[in-house]
């Protein structure tokens, strides 16, 4: 059974139908890709899966449990983590502090009485490891706002990883990166795939074809194609030869 599934999701904003009968399944341990042109509904799909929006119809399950309509924090506490297309960092915190607040044991520390001394040396150690995973070990003390763009993108991912998630949704992690930045990110994801279950939105197919085990293509709010990169490439070639070619 798949770790995370979406069944027949519908979502509309006012008159605009943004998701129409979207069904997806993400396997544990795999890298799944979601592809599609601008405005296709990819981010909205993530927003529905992670609890920001409640779907009008359909069901979302995680680890066999129905999580449809649960609040984002509730879903997050179950082990679903995500990054954002528009950078969402704690700008005045340092890179290390960004990771620290994301650690589940720091969050759980909220319930402890504040006067109790906390030995958070372990948390800091773990936070440093997370930073090292994305190559930011040298930036621990730099405020997030002061990091260069590419490193902010890396931190955006690291914060999602710090939550010790069972599945990670990355919304266009390559947005705004140049060729070199993309190459570095793709190398990073190749590393991470051994440790995490990943779902990545991307509208550049070259990037995903090299990384993903399975790819779903969303267009006008519908899943129009799905399969392994190889199968999709073959289909694409067939389509490219035909008349109905999309740019």
């Amino acid at each position, binding site marked *: 059974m798949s770790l995370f599934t979406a069944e027949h999701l519908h979502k509309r904003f006012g008159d605009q139908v943004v998701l129409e009968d979207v069904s997806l399944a993400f396997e544990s341990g795999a890298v799944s890709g979601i592809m599609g042109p601008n405005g296709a509904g990819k981010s909205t799909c993530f927003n529905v899966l992670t609890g920001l929006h409640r779907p009008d119809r359909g069901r979302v399950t995680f680890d066999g449990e129905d999580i449809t309509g649960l609040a984002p924090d509730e879903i997050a506490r179950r082990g679903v983590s995500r990054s954002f297309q528009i950078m969402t960092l704690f700008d005045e915190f340092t890179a290390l502090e960004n990771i620290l607040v994301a650690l589940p044991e720091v969050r759980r520390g*909220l319930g402890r009485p504040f006067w109790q001394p906390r030995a958070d040396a372990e948390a800091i150690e773990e936070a440093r490891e997370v930073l090292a995973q994305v190559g930011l070990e040298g930036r621990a003390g730099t405020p997030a706002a002061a990091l260069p763009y590419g490193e902010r993108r890396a931190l955006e991912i690291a*914060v999602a990883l710090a939550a010790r998630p069972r599945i990670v949704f990355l919304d266009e992690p390559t947005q705004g990166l140049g060729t070199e930045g993309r190459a570095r990110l793709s190398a990073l994801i190749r590393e991470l795939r051994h440790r995490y279950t990943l779902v990545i939105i991307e509208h550049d197919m070259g990037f995903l074809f090299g990384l993903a085990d399975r790819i779903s293509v969303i267009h006008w709010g519908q899943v129009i194609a799905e399969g392994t990169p190889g199968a999709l490439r073959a289909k694409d070639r067939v389509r490219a030869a035909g008349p109905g070619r999309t740019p």
Partner: protein
Amino acid sequence: MLTARGKVPLVTRQMLVFFALLFSYPLWASAVGLYDYIGVEIAIWIIYALGYNLLLGYTGLPSFGHGAFLGIGAYAYGLSQLDLSGGVWIGLLLAVCAATAAAGLVACFLSHRRGIYFALMTIAFGQIFWFVAIKWHGVTGGEDGLLNVLRPELGLGVASISLKSNTTLYYFAAALLAVIVVILWRVLHSPFGAAIQAIRMNETRARFLGYRVWLIKWSVFTLSGAFAGLAGGLFCLTQESAYPDVMSLHASGFVVMMTLIGGGFVSFWGPVVGVIVFFLARDLLGSVTEAWLLWYGLLFMAVMLFEPEGVAGAWGRIAARLGSQKVAAPAAGKEAST
């Protein structure tokens, strides 16, 4: 926030400097033209403003009706003295409980709001409490308020001391303030302190990291109400009365201005500075002109225009320019950890 060194000292060096000034104040106050009573007022308002800054500076939630909780604390203390004659400690305890309860109730209606809606709701609630204080004659004494709330003896277990003298009262308020500073520092360097700052910087991300944002906002609002209640109790003790004026919109505005002028967004000590500036302005400008508030208002506008991070922000920049990282600038207070 969360210290990267793994340990939060109970008392920092900045605190020691502050405590030294605080407890030596009666010795040098008259030499610089000040007096004990204004010291008491300043100590009380610092408690109020530090608690308020949990909300404004750290969580980024602007409350424009916080005077309500100061007022409720003052009334609760006053009533306890008039109707129960329960002594200082019971009175202050009741003041804190009453203000906490009121803030907790209000927070239920506020905690899912952000920005302007949050601010407007705080004004609305502030006005409701103010209105009740004026109209509920039987309990609050209406516009005149509660009068003749005599200062009782302060019981300290083995002995009790009279608070009739302003100097004694000052030391009492200063001692409470010192305890509050230590507690607040702890709170801010706990995971809770990290969480409220995270919510200020990015509420969405905090929620997607599993934080129960509503509950945290509720807690911080209620907590800051508790500090306001303590300040209110002390206020009534000092003034020997409680009256609705402190709950009015313009009185609520004072604590906002103090916090901003001092630099509550960039420094733990910002509100402290802001309160001192306010009371010095009141006394110095007030001795020259009746319209001192006008000048204070202009000062406020000038600070917001030219130095939006307040005194603490300016200080931090100057300290940075002097190039010495060792200067323990108050502005480094929040980030002193890493």
